[in-house]
């Protein structure tokens, strides 16, 4: 187990380092001079040189990279060229919005996807299965931003059930926050729900026809306990990975969802920083995203070992 953990941690560090190089190189390939952006179009050559030295842009590339890496490790991501605010502060202010939104969306997707997936597998060949399958195909085929437009048009403005935009922190007022985040979360989670449902159905069908399920039934286990305790538990392994893999898509989705519903989140920060060529913010944003992805993947791998002990054995010192 310890060896498994250490090797997975090592892999994560390599991924992060690679990502930091890609980010650093990629951001520098963007056109536009950040010193010029910070000093203003009318700056004198001397003022420009001073700003450049101040930002460390006159140093060799590898020095710049080393600086970027060491200060990032110590939690300093620099300051926004545009507003002068520390990047960590900007991220700290916007990340919670997106985390709440994504968490809500993933929870909705899991609950909906698992429940409908199990129903489709257990009620095989009935109208219920056909309906669930149709719904999941639709969920995969509907673009989230269009769903968002329709939701605003009919549910928020038409029926007035939900606010069309704005954000309330769950820490301040949980109920109002839930009210504000419901439509965005449904819009963001719809695609993931469809993916979870399809995978759950497929794995459940496979597991329900497996020998151990027949054995359990023969030994007198009730149908519901077989479905829930054996088949569902084993199906969860695949579903958990899938949800982990959906994260990258979820972040891209959050950018659009936040834009449509006017949420002041991480996605908005990403879009704003790229449009205004705010190098330090772009770097910080992408590093945070990569870190989140790596940590979640690690968590997924650890969850496996809880859900399926065989992985622990083969990953260990055998």
């Amino acid at each position, binding site marked *: 187990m310890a060896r498994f953990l250490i090797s997975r941690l090592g892999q994560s560090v*390599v991924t992060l380092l690679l990502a930091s190089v890609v980010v650093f190189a990629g951001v520098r*390939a963007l056109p536009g001079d950040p010193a010029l952006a910070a000093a203003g179009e009318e700056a004198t050559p001397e003022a420009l040189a001073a700003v450049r030295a101040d930002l460390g842009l006159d140093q060799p590339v590898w020095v710049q990279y080393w600086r970027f890496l060491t200060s990032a490790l110590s939690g300093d991501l620099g300051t926004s060229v545009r507003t002068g605010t520390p990047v960590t502060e900007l991220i700290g202010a916007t990340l919670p919005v997106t985390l709440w939104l994504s968490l809500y969306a993933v929870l909705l997707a899991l609950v909906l996807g698992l429940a409908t997936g199990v129903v489709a597998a257990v009620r095989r060949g009935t109208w219920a299965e056909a309906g669930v399958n149709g719904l999941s195909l*639709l969920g995969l085929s509907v673009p989230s931003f269009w769903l968002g437009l329709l939701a605003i048009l009919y549910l928020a403005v038409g029926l007035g059930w939900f606010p069309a935009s704005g954000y309330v922190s769950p820490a301040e007022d949980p109920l109002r926050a839930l009210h504000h985040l419901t439509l965005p979360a449904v819009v963001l989670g719809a695609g993931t729900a469809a993916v979870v449902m399809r995978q759950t159905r497929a794995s459940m069908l496979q597991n329900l026809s497996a020998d151990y399920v027949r054995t359990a039934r023969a030994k007198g286990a009730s149908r519901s306990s077989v479905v829930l305790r054996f088949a569902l538990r084993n199906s969860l392994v695949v579903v958990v990975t899938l949800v982990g893999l959906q994260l990258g898509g979820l972040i891209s989705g959050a950018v659009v969802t936040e834009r449509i519903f006017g949420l002041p989140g991480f996605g908005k920060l990403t879009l704003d920083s*790229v449009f205004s060529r705010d190098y330090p913010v772009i770097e910080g944003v992408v590093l945070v*995203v990569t870190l989140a992805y790596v940590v979640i993947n690690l968590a997924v791998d650890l969850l496996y070992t809880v859900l399926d002990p065989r992985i622990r054995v083969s990953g260990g010192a055998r």
Partner: protein
Amino acid sequence: MSSPTTAGPAAADRLEVDLGSSRGRVLRRLLRDRSGLAGTVLVALVVLAALLAPLLAPHPPTQVHFETPFQVPRTVGFWLGTDDLGRDVLSRILYGLRASLQVGVLAVVLSVVVGTPLGLAAGYWRGLDVVVSRLTDVVLAFPFLVLAVGLAAIRGASLGNAALALGVAHVPQVIRVVRAETLRLRGSEYVLAARSMDASGVRVLATHVLPNAVPSIVVQATVIVPAVVIGEALLSFLGLGIQPPTPSLGIMLSDAQQYIFRAPTAALFPGLAIVLVCLAFNLFGDALRDALDHGGNR
């Protein structure tokens, strides 16, 4: 109901004949399935509509009719209504479909051409696997929107750059599928036989592994198309993809958002068009996967 023979040269070798007859079996199985038939017909219709857009569209897609803005659907001459500039919504959807599929095909070709060799190599040589898998992780971790936005910033927003970003974003999926197929096939008897006869790795991959991985690659490609169509619409919606006045379903939606309360149907039809395209390819891809899974050529 004889199997359709492939129109290959007369000197087609045995392998090609085998592939041909199994292809016929797969096709028959695909069309016998109800959703497979629906998917195939829908995909054919969508592709035809996009190809024949210049013939089918009642108006040029960028022609403005200032005297008739915001026409409701079923107006004579404008069957799906007009937008704020009086442009015909139906004509714009047909041309938008064309652009969507163009991006779809470009991105799929790119991801398959880049991803297949990488997937084969990663599955065959264990040393390379570590490198390719780490790189795949990095690309997966990178939100494709950041990539697309970066590309748009460096090279300008355009159809080609949207296709490039979307193609790169889907390379990891192709790598994973091809790698898994290679891992499965490299232990098979005929690969072991070829290796025992001193066939080089490249030769084994090209003649024994790749042909058998083709069905999985095709299925993966049909799954990528709808994702790319949605991605293109999303980029154009944000102003990072196709640029006006070229019609695109994403631009139509972003325009419609501005006057959504005045003319809700302007947001309805382009969205429905996207759903239709994606539904068609998803249905087709699912049915194709099932048709191939039932032992077509295994």
